[in-house]
């Protein structure tokens, strides 16, 4: 009980600092760039700092950034009009949540699990590496279109005999091996692919290929390039809310057959490569403090009514290929803007500062856009594991391969824990998804040991 109270105190202090920072950051969006921030009790409207519309915009952006939609609606004294009032309001809600969490912790039965660890990871890309010049030639593009404009040096293509299932199985086997887990321990497999069109689904095929148990659930989820986050979210949610112990989240994309030269604009089709990634998620006992990354806050969303929805549309052309409408430049700008916003939302919700991150595993349409994102977000480029430069845009597997590389690189150094990993991706729509993986503490018990009773579920 005492431990929970201490936790609440620490969380309260942190949330007070965060609340002020969020309010001031959002307020600044409506002030002149060089203007000073007002004193914390200054009435924004009475002082002439904001008009009523700008006031609403500031409050809505605070709600979004803090992950508390509607927090300012229906307040007895009306919406807050000063930095202090807004921050106090956020803080009060955070404090209530922390207390509720602590109460729930006290009341939870022994052994009730709530933590999920990323116990293993792996990835693979298509076995053929095709240089940008060759891609430009086969698509009839001007020299340097792919290399210079997009910054892609080569793309990884699945070989003649390779398909989504082959790549997915390879990545999954690598992830299971790293986790020290047998395939027979997997309780759920969640698969996403933006290219697989067959029936039965890719999830079914992977279940069979890996020889998973008959009572292992199979879920195929969508989201295209944002599919990885959807798969991680579903896997994490299953583990947090059921008796299942082990979930496998897999991405696999092979673009070649749908994006044949001559079929689709080469400036689009030429950007894509093939790859897969896989992550073993394992439920941990509540008090476990294992040396592992845990998915914490997820942010999922969609911007269906804003203009980005019109920037890309892909549909079957009736001849086995696809027809495509897209406005590359506008889509790129929208993607960078939304990814930057997503990273900030994740930071606000998780309380992890972007500067403290060890890596950013984001979707990467191409290296130029990745550089733009790093610039716009003010983040060092070296913290983005670059996937698209050598492999191309791998669809849902872009963020997956980036996350696999990030996990590989983010190891404890001496007594210092590695920083959080921010995962952020978006797909056509725009459909958005992101999460923050935070590092725990001590040693991770083996999967064999932890999964011993999984078969009885």
């Amino acid at each position, binding site marked *: 009980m005492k431990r929970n109270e201490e936790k609440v105190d620490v969380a309260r202090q942190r949330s007070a600092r965060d609340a002020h920072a969020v309010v001031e950051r*959002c307020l600044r*969006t*409506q*002030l*002149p760039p060089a203007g000073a921030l007002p004193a914390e009790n200054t009435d924004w409207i009475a002082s*002439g700092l*904001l*008009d009523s*519309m*700008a006031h*609403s*915009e*500031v*409050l*809505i*952006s605070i709600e*979004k*950034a803090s992950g508390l939609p509607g927090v*300012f*609606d229906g307040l007895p004294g*009306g*919406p807050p009009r000063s930095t202090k009032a807004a921050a106090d309001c956020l803080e009060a809600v955070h404090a209530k949540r922390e207390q509720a969490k602590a109460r729930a912790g006290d009341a939870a039965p022994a052994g009730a699990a709530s933590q999920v660890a990323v116990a293993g990871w792996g990835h693979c890309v298509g076995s053929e590496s095709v240089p940008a010049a060759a891609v430009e030639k086969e698509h009839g593009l001007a020299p340097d279109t792919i290399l210079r404009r997009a910054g892609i040096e080569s793309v990884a293509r699945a070989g003649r005999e390779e398909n989504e299932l082959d790549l997915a199985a390879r990545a999954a086997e690598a992830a299971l091996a790293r986790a020290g887990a047998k395939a027979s321990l997997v309780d759920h497999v969640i698969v996403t692919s933006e290219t697989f069109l067959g029936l039965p689904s890719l999830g079914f095929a992977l279940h069979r290929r890996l020889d998973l148990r008959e009572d292992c659930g199979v879920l195929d989820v969508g989201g295209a390039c944002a599919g990885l986050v959807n798969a991680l979210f579903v896997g994490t949610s299953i583990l947090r809310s059921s008796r299942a112990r082990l979930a496998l989240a897999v991405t696999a994309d092979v673009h070649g057959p749908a994006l044949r030269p001559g079929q689709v604009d080469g400036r689009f089709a030429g950007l894509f490569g093939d790859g897969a990634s896989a992550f073993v998620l394992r439920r941990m006992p509540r008090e476990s403090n294992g040396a592992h990354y845990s998915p914490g806050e997820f942010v999922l969303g969609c911007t269906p*009514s*804003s*203009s980005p929805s*019109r920037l890309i549309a892909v549909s079957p052309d009736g001849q086995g290929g696809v027809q495509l409408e897209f406005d590359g430049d506008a889509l790129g700008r929208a993607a960078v*803007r*939304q990814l930057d*916003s997503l990273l*900030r939302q994740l930071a606000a919700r998780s309380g992890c500062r972007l500067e403290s991150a060890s890596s950013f595993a984001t979707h990467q349409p191409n290296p130029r856009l990745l550089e733009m994102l790093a610039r716009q977000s003010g983040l060092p480029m070296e913290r983005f594991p670059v996937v698209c430069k050598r492999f191309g845009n791998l669809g849902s597997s872009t963020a997956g391969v980036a996350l696999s590389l990030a996990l590989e690189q983010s190891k404890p150094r001496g007594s210092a824990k590695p920083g959080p990993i921010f995962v952020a991706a978006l797909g056509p729509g725009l459909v958005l998804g992101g999460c923050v993986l935070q590092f725990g503490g001590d040693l991770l018990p083996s999967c064999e040991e932890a999964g011993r009773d999984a078969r009885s579920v």
Partner: protein
Amino acid sequence: MRELILSEITRMAQGYCIIGLEPQGNAFRSVRPMPQRSHAWGHPWPHSRGDRLRFRLASLPSVRPHVEDFQAAGAPACTGRVAEGELLRCLRAAETGRKTEELFGSALQTNPQGGGAAWVNAREATRSICGCEFRFVRFHWKLDRWRAELQLTSGESLKSLPIVDRDWNDFLDEAAKLGGSQNPQERVRSFLNGPVAAAIWKDENRFARLGLARPNPQGVCWLMLDSLFPLQKREWLSKFAAGPGTT
């Protein structure tokens, strides 16, 4: 004396802002008569949308984007009235835009992290009122007011337009009274986005007039929903009052 067809009556903090249409050849232009020393006419404003009003108007120095401003001497006299259909015909022959950039002669801006309210830069905008056809409308209550999301026929969306139209606001106030004591906004929102949005969708005359607020110190002029056609209907409220299942 100049005769205007009253097309907009919008709620402001201290009263009402009004706009009328003045014939100009085969077309119409928007004129915003303002009383002495104020932008707004006080309560009560006795006239209705569609009234033909005769004003004594004097020009004001043209300050972009509110180039429609005129000084009115005294109260107007009412000489008649046009029906909703005729008013709409006149509005379609006044200032209109199909795409967002055509509305006020400059690009609209929004804060990606904000609530979706749009604004234009006062120095770039060339007018402060414009009509547009739209595909659909949705309503939501946020913080302290009703807002509308419009999708224009160009496919572009204006996500959060504060509704300042007096008649629609009166209608929403009445609906809120009928919404019950527990979270009335939620019930009204369902009503608006259900039967009301459906009725608007079925109507061929989907037309909105968007206005610009006066520039704030940063030179930002926010977009507002000044008029929404088809106009609100009393029978919608009767159905709402009768409860679920009858709308």
